[in-house]
Protein backbone atom coordinates (compact mmCIF):
# COMPACT_ATOMS: atom_id res chain seq x y z
CA UNK A 1 0.00 0.00 0.00
CA UNK A 2 2.75 2.44 0.95
CA UNK A 3 4.59 1.69 -2.25
CA UNK A 4 1.36 2.48 -4.08
CA UNK A 5 0.95 5.85 -2.34
CA UNK A 6 4.45 6.98 -3.21
CA UNK A 7 4.69 5.34 -6.63
CA UNK A 8 4.56 8.77 -8.32
CA UNK A 9 7.91 9.48 -6.72
CA UNK A 10 9.27 6.15 -7.98
CA UNK A 11 8.14 6.92 -11.54
CA UNK A 12 9.92 10.29 -11.49
CA UNK A 13 12.98 8.69 -9.88
CA UNK A 14 13.16 6.09 -12.66
CA UNK A 15 13.11 8.92 -15.21
CA UNK A 16 15.85 10.81 -13.39
CA UNK A 17 17.97 7.69 -13.07
CA UNK A 18 17.60 6.83 -16.77
CA UNK A 19 18.50 10.36 -17.87
CA UNK A 20 21.51 10.44 -15.53
CA UNK A 21 22.73 7.15 -17.01
CA UNK A 22 22.31 8.63 -20.47
CA UNK A 23 24.39 11.64 -19.41
CA UNK A 24 27.12 9.30 -18.15
CA UNK A 25 27.20 7.46 -21.49
CA UNK A 26 27.35 10.78 -23.36
CA UNK A 27 30.20 11.97 -21.11
CA UNK A 28 32.01 8.71 -21.83
CA UNK A 29 31.48 9.19 -25.57
CA UNK A 30 32.91 12.72 -25.43
CA UNK A 31 35.85 11.59 -23.28
CA UNK A 32 36.65 8.90 -25.85
CA UNK A 33 36.15 11.07 -28.94
CA UNK A 34 39.81 10.51 -29.82
CA UNK A 35 40.46 7.02 -28.44
CA UNK A 36 41.95 5.03 -31.31
CA UNK A 37 42.15 1.85 -29.26
CA UNK A 38 39.50 0.10 -27.16
CA UNK A 39 39.19 -3.15 -25.24
CA UNK A 40 37.38 -4.73 -28.22
CA UNK A 41 40.26 -3.78 -30.49
CA UNK A 42 39.95 -1.03 -33.08
CA UNK A 43 38.86 2.51 -32.22
CA UNK A 44 36.15 3.38 -29.70
CA UNK A 45 32.58 3.19 -30.98
CA UNK A 46 29.88 5.61 -29.83
CA UNK A 47 27.61 4.01 -27.19
CA UNK A 48 23.86 4.52 -26.92
CA UNK A 49 21.28 3.51 -24.27
CA UNK A 50 17.93 1.95 -25.13
CA UNK A 51 14.92 3.13 -23.10
CA UNK A 52 11.63 1.27 -22.67
CA UNK A 53 8.43 2.15 -20.82
CA UNK A 54 8.08 0.01 -17.68
CA UNK A 55 4.76 -1.45 -16.53
CA UNK A 56 3.80 -3.69 -13.62
CA UNK A 57 3.76 -7.31 -14.73
CA UNK A 58 0.33 -7.84 -13.23
CA UNK A 59 -1.24 -4.67 -14.64
CA UNK A 60 -3.32 -4.53 -17.80
CA UNK A 61 -1.87 -2.42 -20.57
CA UNK A 62 -4.58 0.25 -20.24
CA UNK A 63 -4.49 0.60 -16.45
CA UNK A 64 -2.24 2.80 -14.34
CA UNK A 65 0.24 0.11 -13.27
CA UNK A 66 3.15 2.36 -14.23
CA UNK A 67 6.73 1.94 -13.16
CA UNK A 68 8.24 4.75 -15.21
CA UNK A 69 11.06 4.07 -17.64
CA UNK A 70 13.85 1.53 -17.66
CA UNK A 71 17.17 1.16 -19.46
CA UNK A 72 17.01 -2.14 -21.35
CA UNK A 73 20.37 -2.12 -23.01
CA UNK A 74 23.45 -0.36 -24.31
CA UNK A 75 24.44 -0.69 -27.96
CA UNK A 76 27.42 0.43 -29.99
CA UNK A 77 26.85 2.72 -32.96
CA UNK A 78 27.84 0.67 -36.03
CA UNK A 79 28.08 3.63 -38.37
CA UNK A 80 31.21 4.13 -40.46
CA UNK A 81 34.41 5.15 -38.69
CA UNK A 82 36.08 8.25 -40.14
CA UNK A 83 39.73 8.12 -41.24
CA UNK A 84 42.18 10.92 -40.60
CA UNK A 85 45.66 11.35 -42.12
CA UNK A 86 48.15 11.28 -39.21
CA UNK A 87 51.39 9.67 -40.41
CA UNK A 88 53.64 8.49 -37.60
CA UNK A 89 50.71 7.81 -35.26
CA UNK A 90 51.07 4.49 -33.47
CA UNK A 91 47.78 3.21 -34.94
CA UNK A 92 48.29 4.67 -38.41
CA UNK A 93 48.25 2.43 -41.47
CA UNK A 94 51.97 2.01 -42.31
CA UNK A 95 51.32 2.45 -46.04
CA UNK A 96 48.69 5.20 -46.27
CA UNK A 97 49.27 6.97 -42.94
CA UNK A 98 45.53 6.97 -42.22
CA UNK A 99 44.24 6.52 -38.63
CA UNK A 100 40.72 5.16 -38.05
CA UNK A 101 39.03 7.47 -35.53
CA UNK A 102 35.97 6.86 -33.27
CA UNK A 103 32.57 7.69 -34.78
CA UNK A 104 31.77 10.15 -31.96
CA UNK A 105 30.50 13.50 -33.20
CA UNK A 106 30.74 16.22 -30.57
CA UNK A 107 27.77 18.34 -31.83
CA UNK A 108 25.46 15.29 -31.70
CA UNK A 109 26.66 14.44 -28.22
CA UNK A 110 26.10 18.01 -27.02
CA UNK A 111 22.53 17.99 -28.36
CA UNK A 112 21.86 14.67 -26.62
CA UNK A 113 23.38 16.04 -23.43
CA UNK A 114 21.05 19.05 -23.45
CA UNK A 115 18.02 16.82 -24.12
CA UNK A 116 18.99 14.52 -21.26
CA UNK A 117 19.54 17.45 -18.92
CA UNK A 118 16.17 19.03 -19.76
CA UNK A 119 14.37 15.70 -19.36
CA UNK A 120 16.05 15.27 -15.98
CA UNK A 121 14.72 18.69 -14.96
CA UNK A 122 11.20 17.75 -16.09
CA UNK A 123 11.28 14.61 -13.93
CA UNK A 124 12.66 16.59 -11.01
CA UNK A 125 9.81 19.07 -11.38
CA UNK A 126 7.25 16.24 -11.35
CA UNK A 127 8.89 14.92 -8.18
CA UNK A 128 8.81 18.36 -6.48
CA UNK A 129 5.15 18.80 -7.38
CA UNK A 130 4.36 15.38 -5.92
CA UNK A 131 6.16 16.34 -2.70
CA UNK A 132 4.06 19.50 -2.43
CA UNK A 133 0.88 17.49 -2.98
CA UNK A 134 1.81 15.06 -0.21
CA UNK A 135 2.70 17.89 2.16
CA UNK A 136 -0.60 19.54 1.44
CA UNK A 137 -2.44 16.32 2.31
CA UNK A 138 -0.44 15.74 5.47
CA UNK A 139 -1.33 19.25 6.62
CA UNK A 140 -4.93 18.01 6.80
CA UNK A 141 -3.85 15.60 9.53
CA UNK A 142 -2.33 18.42 11.54
CA UNK A 143 -5.72 20.12 11.47
CA UNK A 144 -5.36 23.10 9.20
CA UNK A 145 -4.71 23.84 5.55
Amino acid at each position, binding site marked *: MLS*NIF*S*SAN*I*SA*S*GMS*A*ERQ*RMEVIANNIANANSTQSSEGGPYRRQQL*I*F*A*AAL*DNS*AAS*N*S*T*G*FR*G*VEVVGQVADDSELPEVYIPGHEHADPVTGMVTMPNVQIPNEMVDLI*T*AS*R*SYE*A*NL*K*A*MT*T*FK*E*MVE*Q*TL*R*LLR*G*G*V
Partner: protein
Amino acid sequence: MSIQISQSQVLRNALEFASQNHRVISQNMANLNTPGYQSLELLAEQLATGASQHLAEFQTKPVEGLQERPNGNNVDLDTEMSNMRRNDLVYQTLTQLLGAKVDMLKTAIKG
Protein backbone atom coordinates in the same frame (compact mmCIF):
# COMPACT_ATOMS: atom_id res chain seq x y z
CA MET B 1 -25.57 14.06 7.92
CA SER B 2 -25.99 12.03 4.74
CA ILE B 3 -25.28 15.16 2.70
CA GLN B 4 -21.99 15.70 4.55
CA ILE B 5 -20.85 12.13 3.95
CA SER B 6 -21.59 12.26 0.25
CA GLN B 7 -19.74 15.58 -0.02
CA SER B 8 -16.57 14.10 1.49
CA GLN B 9 -17.04 11.09 -0.76
CA VAL B 10 -17.07 13.33 -3.84
CA LEU B 11 -13.96 15.12 -2.57
CA ARG B 12 -12.28 11.80 -1.90
CA ASN B 13 -12.99 10.53 -5.43
CA ALA B 14 -11.74 13.76 -6.96
CA LEU B 15 -8.56 13.67 -4.83
CA GLU B 16 -7.89 10.09 -5.86
CA PHE B 17 -8.44 11.03 -9.49
CA ALA B 18 -6.03 13.96 -9.19
CA SER B 19 -3.32 11.87 -7.56
CA GLN B 20 -3.68 9.15 -10.23
CA ASN B 21 -3.56 11.88 -12.87
CA HIS B 22 -0.22 12.99 -11.43
CA ARG B 23 1.09 9.44 -11.81
CA VAL B 24 0.04 9.34 -15.47
CA ILE B 25 1.74 12.69 -16.12
CA SER B 26 4.89 11.49 -14.30
CA GLN B 27 4.91 8.35 -16.45
CA ASN B 28 4.64 10.45 -19.62
CA MET B 29 7.51 12.68 -18.47
CA ALA B 30 9.70 9.73 -17.48
CA ASN B 31 9.23 8.37 -21.01
CA LEU B 32 10.08 11.64 -22.75
CA ASN B 33 12.90 9.92 -24.66
CA THR B 34 11.52 6.38 -25.00
CA PRO B 35 11.22 5.47 -28.69
CA GLY B 36 7.67 4.52 -29.71
CA TYR B 37 6.08 5.65 -26.42
CA GLN B 38 2.61 7.21 -26.78
CA SER B 39 1.25 9.79 -24.30
CA LEU B 40 -1.47 8.48 -21.98
CA GLU B 41 -4.28 10.20 -20.08
CA LEU B 42 -6.93 9.08 -17.59
CA LEU B 43 -10.46 8.43 -18.82
CA ALA B 44 -12.33 11.49 -17.54
CA GLU B 45 -15.53 9.51 -16.87
CA GLN B 46 -13.80 7.92 -13.86
CA LEU B 47 -13.90 11.26 -12.02
CA ALA B 48 -17.59 10.61 -11.28
CA THR B 49 -17.51 6.84 -10.87
CA GLY B 50 -14.27 6.54 -8.92
CA ALA B 51 -16.13 5.54 -5.71
CA SER B 52 -15.43 1.82 -5.66
CA GLN B 53 -12.25 1.96 -7.70
CA HIS B 54 -9.11 0.52 -6.21
CA LEU B 55 -6.01 2.68 -6.70
CA ALA B 56 -4.56 0.55 -9.47
CA GLU B 57 -7.79 0.12 -11.39
CA PHE B 58 -8.01 3.48 -13.08
CA GLN B 59 -8.11 3.16 -16.87
CA THR B 60 -6.02 5.16 -19.30
CA LYS B 61 -6.20 5.87 -23.00
CA PRO B 62 -3.70 7.26 -25.54
CA VAL B 63 -3.85 11.03 -26.11
CA GLU B 64 -5.00 11.87 -29.63
CA GLY B 65 -3.88 14.64 -31.95
CA LEU B 66 -0.25 14.92 -30.84
CA GLN B 67 2.62 15.42 -33.26
CA GLU B 68 4.78 12.29 -33.38
CA ARG B 69 8.55 12.71 -33.44
CA PRO B 70 10.77 10.64 -35.79
CA ASN B 71 11.42 8.04 -33.06
CA GLY B 72 7.68 7.33 -32.72
CA ASN B 73 7.38 9.19 -29.40
CA ASN B 74 4.63 11.80 -29.06
CA VAL B 75 5.12 13.17 -25.52
CA ASP B 76 4.79 16.96 -25.56
CA LEU B 77 6.72 18.37 -22.59
CA ASP B 78 4.91 21.74 -22.58
CA THR B 79 1.48 20.09 -22.55
CA GLU B 80 2.55 17.74 -19.77
CA MET B 81 3.99 20.62 -17.73
CA SER B 82 0.81 22.67 -17.98
CA ASN B 83 -1.33 19.60 -17.22
CA MET B 84 0.79 18.94 -14.16
CA ARG B 85 0.50 22.53 -12.94
CA ARG B 86 -3.27 22.50 -13.45
CA ASN B 87 -3.60 19.15 -11.72
CA ASP B 88 -1.54 20.47 -8.81
CA LEU B 89 -3.87 23.47 -8.42
CA VAL B 90 -6.93 21.21 -8.54
CA TYR B 91 -5.36 18.99 -5.88
CA GLN B 92 -4.60 21.99 -3.65
CA THR B 93 -8.17 23.25 -4.04
CA LEU B 94 -9.56 19.85 -3.11
CA THR B 95 -7.38 19.45 0.00
CA GLN B 96 -8.36 22.96 1.14
CA LEU B 97 -12.03 22.11 0.66
CA LEU B 98 -11.58 18.90 2.62
CA GLY B 99 -9.75 20.86 5.33
CA ALA B 100 -12.64 23.30 5.52
CA LYS B 101 -15.05 20.42 5.95
CA VAL B 102 -12.97 18.98 8.78
CA ASP B 103 -12.92 22.40 10.45
CA MET B 104 -16.70 22.59 10.21
CA LEU B 105 -17.02 19.20 11.86
CA LYS B 106 -14.61 20.30 14.60
CA THR B 107 -16.65 23.43 15.23
CA ALA B 108 -19.82 21.35 15.42
CA ILE B 109 -18.23 19.00 17.98
CA LYS B 110 -16.65 21.68 20.17
CA GLY B 111 -19.58 24.08 19.89
